[in-house]
């Protein structure tokens, strides 16, 4: 007997992600999902962003790693709420893991929650966690062929941060090719060239992020 089904295989995760999103919306909390390959600079970007925006908005961070709490310790030194998730092998975070952290936060004290996903250019793009938007980092040491090799993540992201531009003189990577290839896959992608090492380009990212939070109705201090 044949049964016609037509069901999205990821529906269970999508449903939990929607529930998470409803909770974030109710608390007036903006959430973004930060993705990249291992070592592209996710935690460094967060350290810089926390310092750059500490007078303007109240941030919290969920750190996703397969193992260890080193990233959470780095964020905790900045004096903001952080929860470490160890996936114990899983290559991505999902809606359920994010939901399990809720009791460790007081969302009333936060304007922005960042979910730092497991370093991986493939799997995290497939799983919603309840975010408002996705941000990805590509560092120039990874090469300009990454958009065409990993199209899903570039397609799903709202922002692409091209990091480590201080290393451009030492690597064979053409930044215009990265941009051109990324825009083919996602013509509406917002891109910033940055260096978390020197701080170059970060002000434009901070301004964009402040505006993104403000445009969702969150009242920012300081401005």
């Amino acid at each position, binding site marked *: 007997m044949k049964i016609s089904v037509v069901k999205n295989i990821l529906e269970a995760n999508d449903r939990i992600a929607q529930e998470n999103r409803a909770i974030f919306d109710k608390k007036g909390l903006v959430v973004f999902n930060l993705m990249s390959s291992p070592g592209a600079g996710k935690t460094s970007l967060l350290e810089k962003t926390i310092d750059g925006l500490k007078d303007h908005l109240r941030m919290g961070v969920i750190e996703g790693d397969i193992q260890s709490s080193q990233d959470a310790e780095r964020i905790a030194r900045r004096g903001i709420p952080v929860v470490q998730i160890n996936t114990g092998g899983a290559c991505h975070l999902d809606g359920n893991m994010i939901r399990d952290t809720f009791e460790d936060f007081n969302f009333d004290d936060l304007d922005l929650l960042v979910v730092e996903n497991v370093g991986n250019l493939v799997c995290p793009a*497939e799983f919603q966690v309840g975010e408002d938007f996705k941000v990805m980092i590509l560092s120039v040491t990874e090469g300009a062929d990454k958009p065409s090799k990993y199209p899903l993540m570039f397609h799903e992201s709202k922002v692409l941060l091209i990091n480590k531009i201080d290393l451009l003189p030492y690597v064979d990577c053409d930044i215009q090719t990265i941009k051109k290839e990324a825009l083919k896959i996602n013509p509406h992608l917002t891109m910033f060239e940055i260096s978390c090492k020197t701080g170059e380009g970060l002000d434009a990212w901070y301004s964009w992020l402040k505006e993104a939070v403000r445009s969702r109705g969150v009242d920012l201090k300081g401005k």
Partner: protein
Amino acid sequence: MHEMSIAQSLIDILREEMAKHNAGTLRSVRLHIGQLSAIVPDSLSFCFEVMTSGTELEGAGLIMETIPLKGTCRDCKQTFEIQDYTFECPECASTEIDTIAGQDLSIVEMEVD
């Protein structure tokens, strides 16, 4: 290797559907795998086989069909196949494209006894 998580979600849905239809044996299941989804069919097959081994689902065939990426242009309403992951209308060069196929991961049919 998120195929393990995908296989688990798939098995959960299959069990639910089989109970709903009072089915005892799963012969095969047909999946549509969007071209843009980051699934490797061979890995999914492997995970499915390992995870169903020794269960009532053991031996079920997994038939996977890759669904090409298709879009509709919001400006000229043209529907077209998105080639080379380039989200641009081949008719009017607009980049206002709605993806209408090739992104999802879905079960479309099960054969049961």
